[in-house]
């Protein structure tokens, strides 16, 4: 792929199976079957290569994915009950999101999207604040000090360049913090993608571009979104490494993003990871996927459920039991229920709060509006 000088650069290149960059991975296999180029864990739970993590780490990743799915399921239910605003489910993308976030240091920056609750949470954004935000409350964006996760971007694509500026600033200020931006396949068609990738490469910023290619931008399939062989291959034109991974393989994502983060932290610049995954649910709770895709399409992917894959591995290792699963689910439910309870107990925001958060100090027009008739 790209001819970077450093040894670490070769480290990332080594992830790419021979032939991948030359288009040997056909559009058919990538897009229709979701077979990605870099994978360590097969859908049946068998291991393709030696896994570079311990069994305990594996169990911990699994527990995180279970907790994330519990949040996702709960959120959909709450939206149906009118307790949350429109919600964008991430079911099917848990491995991509948890794997990416688990590869970061806790003080690294994250700029992600409305579908990235699992990623944001694993990077430090508390569930209760994510829920508070989705109830329609700006205070949900007020993450605790020390958590460097920006609130989910709602417009598509504009946030990618922020991870360039954040990383650039850290570099200039002499820290070794990096920034990861997560975005979807649709966002790669925005001009913002080009500007962000180009700036990152030109200024060699420690930025990880993490694309979750989940097959659709609302209704528009990835096969129509771009005529490039893959999204990862676009990296080459910008002069940075790009790799396509099986986004439903949490270990593959973890390894790839770790490599990309290590490159960035070592001063070797940005890279692009394309995690090929699948959005099992609708675009949002307001969407009807039956209008643009076959119902069994999702069914085939359920077979490759990122959680089920890890469960099978753990079972093969004798590390999974029905009781443990029940414990995990009960704990996750308790955690999410507590977060919901916390968020719903927050008093309604006041008129004053709405006006007081526009500027460091309310401007004279806002002061008049605060003091005047209403």
């Amino acid at each position, binding site marked *: 792929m790209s001819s970077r000088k450093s040894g670490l650069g070769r480290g990332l290149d080594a992830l790419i199976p021979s032939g991948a960059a030359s288009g040997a991975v056909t559009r058919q296999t990538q897009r229709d079957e979701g077979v990605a180029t870099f994978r360590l864990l097969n859908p049946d739970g068998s291991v393709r290569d030696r896994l570079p993590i311990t069994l305990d780490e594996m169990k911990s990743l699994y527990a995180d994915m279970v907790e994330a799915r519990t949040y996702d399921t709960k959120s959909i239910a709450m939206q149906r009950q009118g307790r949350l605003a429109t919600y964008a489910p991430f079911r099917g993308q848990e491995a991509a999101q948890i794997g990416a976030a688990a590869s970061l240091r806790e003080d690294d920056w994250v700029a992600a999207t409305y579908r990235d609750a699992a990623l944001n949470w694993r990077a430090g954004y508390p569930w209760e604040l994510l829920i508070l935000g989705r109830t329609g409350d700006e205070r949900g964006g*007020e*993450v605790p000090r020390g958590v460097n996760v920006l609130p989910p971007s709602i417009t598509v694509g*504009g946030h990618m360049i*922020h*991870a360039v500026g954040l990383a*650039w600033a850290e570099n200039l200020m002499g820290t070794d913090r990096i920034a990861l931006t997560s975005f979807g396949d649709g966002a790669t068609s925005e001009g913002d993608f080009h500007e962000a990738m*180009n700036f990152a490469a030109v200024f060699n910023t420690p930025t990880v571009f993490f694309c979750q290619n989940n097959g659709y931008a609302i209704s528009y399939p990835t096969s129509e979104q771009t005529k490039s062989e893959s999204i990862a291959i676009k990296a080459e034109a910008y002069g940075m490494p790009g790799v396509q991974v099986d986004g439903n393989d949490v270990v593959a994502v973890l390894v790839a993003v770790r490599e990309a983060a290590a490159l960035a932290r070592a001063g070797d610049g940005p890279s692009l990871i394309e995690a090929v995954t699948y959005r099992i649910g609708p675009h949002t709770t307001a969407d009807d996927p039956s209008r643009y895709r076959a119902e069994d399409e999702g069914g085939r992917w359920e077979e490759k459920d990122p959680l089920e894959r890890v469960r099978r591995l753990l079972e093969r290792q004798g590390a999974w039991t029905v009781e443990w699963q029940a414990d995990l689910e009960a704990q996750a439910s308790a955690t999410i229920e507590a977060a919901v309870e916390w968020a719903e107990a927050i008093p309604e925001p006041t008129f004053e709060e709405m006006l007081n958060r526009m500027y460091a100090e309310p401007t004279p027009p806002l002061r008049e509006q605060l003091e005047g008739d209403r």
Partner: protein
Amino acid sequence: MAELNLAQALNGALDTALDADERVVLLGEDIGRVGGVFRITDGLRERHGPNRVFDTPVAESGIVGAAFGMAVAGMRPVCELQFLGFSYPAYDQIINHVARIRNRTNHRFTAPMVIRIPYGGGIGAAEHHSESTEAIYTHIPGIKVVVPSTPRDARGLLLAAIEDPDPVVFLEPIRLYRAVKEDIPDIYYKVEIGPVRMERAGDDVTLISWGAMMRETRAAADQLAEAGVSAEVLDVRTLSPLDREGIVASVEKTGRAVVVHEAPLSGGMGGEIAATIAERALYSLHAPVQRVAGWDTIFPLKRSEAHYLPSVDRIVDAASKTLEV
């Protein structure tokens, strides 16, 4: 003290800010090697180094978006967009991100940054190079919009903008860059963002303007003085937040007001100012408020420029109209 024009004053302010605060960085197209299309950053890359003053790829949205990230991370970026007509690719970043991050995070993350943009016509420039679309920025909550018209204000307002905890769109009147020189102090000083500047006190009519049109407004006040009319001249300087009190206080005294701006009449800031006067000083008025503005046209190319720009005569006529009532 040094006698400087507006361009030199801005250059000096940036130089001072780079010296005073290591978090300040400059980024923009052609601002390093050549010192920017108007040479406002001339010599700053040589003085402060390529890690403080960055030439960037040609991407306005990228410049503002990257600067936003830098600001959130704790730096004080100052970006330059070459012309107001070239700023629109960055509008999404400004309205959807720069202006909102404080609100979206309830003060947890902020974007203290300055977006410098040369604006306005009168130099016979190519299409898109002469825009006065300040009203599309003043309508956005979460940012401030500042327009200096004198070298002294240019330095003080720019230093204040760089120190401001909130994002500032800093519009620089191209026509005035090298128009006049003024003695300005070498020291670090700020001009408060917000208050209007009363340039000339008067009793009969208040002439209200900003940016490049201050020159014609001043000349109109001179002509009116010759005719025995005492005009008060206000330089608004900060278009957002608007100093309503300062404007109303003057109109309450004179009882007459003429607002002058280069931007098209309809939907311009003149309407906001006229409405403010109508709301708060109607009973002090001896005559209806007059607006002298650009026409509701695209800013014309060179050969029609004289048709477009508000002239001294139009301002004098408008003021006279308020005096006839």
